[in-house]
């Protein structure tokens, strides 16, 4: 009997270990697949020119990815700019100030928001945000804007990211032991002072990790952004112009022009860029996190 139990334990461990390896391998295989698929477009063109050129003429075999990269960065940056302060203060309120009754109602509401399909956010953006920008915001700055802009994409994406960011922040804040807050309160500090000087300090690394995760998610968000960004190829000079982020490019075109092998390859390369940007971003944040943690100890 005893042996049997131990065998089962070993077996379970083995199975779970294999599954973990497979999950990691998926990422590696995907990266390799993307690289192989995008090799045709890399032949005869320098990586530098692909990344820095803004000429996009697939028919002539000219592929410049700069507009798409800039579009992605613009929209993501704007989304985080909008969602960060809101999520941050909401999470502080909920963990440090709100009564448990409030939390009991707000937490499920946040979960529902997080679970809404992104196409719904897209529709909301088209029906509300786009006309609002076109009729009320843009006229202050230019003669005409369709409303399908970087700003619209940033707002929609920002709102989408809020529930994710709030729940990540809440998780980070609740990891701070109650005794630490009490130690500060017992010295005569107010809640705000305690939050500012103890809780935020203790959670700096965690907050950064949360933001990076949110940025990674935001960079890859496709459908809601695609619906409101305008999908016009070109480098936007301000947030009231249209843009064309990488995920939208891939989703819009993949499967359409596969008769042109080079075009398919270019789209695969776009996916590889997205993959690499997110990867580099995460690596950088890991390094920063490591530095912060080492400083604390």
């Amino acid at each position: 009997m005893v042996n049997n139990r131990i065998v089962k334990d070993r077996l379970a461990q083995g199975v779970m270990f294999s599954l973990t390896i497979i999950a990691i391998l998926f990422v590696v295989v995907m990266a390799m697949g993307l690289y192989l698929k995008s090799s045709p477009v890399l032949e005869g063109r320098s990586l530098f020119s692909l990344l820095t050129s803004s000429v996009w003429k697939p028919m002539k075999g000219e592929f410049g990815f700069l507009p798409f990269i800039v579009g992605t960065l613009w929209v993501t940056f704007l989304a985080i700019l909008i969602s960060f302060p809101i999520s941050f203060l909401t999470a502080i309120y909920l963990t440090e100030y709100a009564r448990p009754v409030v939390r009991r109602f707000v937490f499920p509401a946040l979960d529902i928001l997080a679970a809404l399909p992104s196409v719904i956010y897209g529709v909301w953006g088209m029906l509300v945000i786009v006309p609002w920008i076109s009729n009320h915001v843009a006229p202050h700055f230019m003669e005409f804007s369709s409303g399908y802009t970087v700003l619209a994409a940033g707002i929609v994406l920002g709102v989408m990211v809020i529930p994710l960011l709030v729940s990540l922040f809440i998780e980070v804040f609740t990891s701070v032991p109650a005794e630490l807050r009490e130690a500060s309160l017992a010295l005569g500090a107010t809640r705000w002072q305690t939050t500012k000087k103890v809780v935020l300090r203790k959670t700096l690394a965690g907050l950064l990790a949360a933001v990076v995760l949110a940025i990674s998610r935001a960079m890859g968000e496709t459908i809601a952004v695609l619906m409101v960004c305008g999908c016009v190829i070109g480098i936007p000079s301000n947030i009231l112009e249209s843009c064309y982020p990488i995920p939208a490019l891939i989703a819009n075109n993949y499967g359409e022009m596969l008769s042109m092998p080079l075009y398919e390859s270019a789209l695969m390369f776009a996916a590889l860029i997205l993959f690499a940007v997110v990867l580099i971003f995460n690596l950088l944040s890991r390094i920063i996190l490591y530095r912060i943690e080492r400083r604390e100890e």
Partner: protein
Amino acid sequence: MAIEIQDLNVYIKDAHILKNLSVTIPEKQITCIIGPSGCGKSTLLRTLNRLIDSTDGVRLEGKVLVDGTDIISSGPEITELRRKIGLVSQRPCPLPMSIFDNVAYGCRINKMYKRHRDLENAVHENLRAVGLWDEVRGRVRTPAARLSIGQQQRLCLARSLAVEPQYILADEATSALDPISSKTVEDLFVSLKNNYTIIMVTHTLRQALRIADNVVFMYLGEIIESGPAQQVFKNPKQELTQKYLSGAFS
């Protein structure tokens, strides 16, 4: 000035946690609150500096007079109260900052010193008061988390002393420490009683025997007996106290 507790009742949701407590805690002495687990010792301590406010569904009745002011009815203006009453918790809880900043934290929060020089002197003085100065001089700017547990607990005491409280609450402040650190901290409390009124929750009867001037014995949310340590330990009036002291239950 003493702390006077009059008919204190504490409810958490439907549970009646502290029942009709009335006791006077004399000043500049060590008062030990003893009793078995779950008798309400810690709740009483947390009521005295109103940290209990953060507990969900808590309701307080009665009076707790600190320097003649009732702290139960004094509303949310409790930061000043908390500054007057230092707290040393069971596990040492250094703030996520340097040794220096830990001790300076309360002083800065309460804007006690205008000149950095004065702040520095105060920090050093309080580190000396808890016997930590010689161990940490030269590295006061390093994170407090690098200290040993025993050192951390003394640091927490220094941090409490730095805001110049009149009272010190200690919640089983030595229970997480090794025997040597435990002895050091215990001796510290004894040396501090000339200047502070100390209220200590302790789980170990021997500790109370060693250092208490006064004893409050609690059982199931009630005060069974209280008085000078000599009297309570040598001639307990209540049968329950006798049983507890003789080790019939713990």
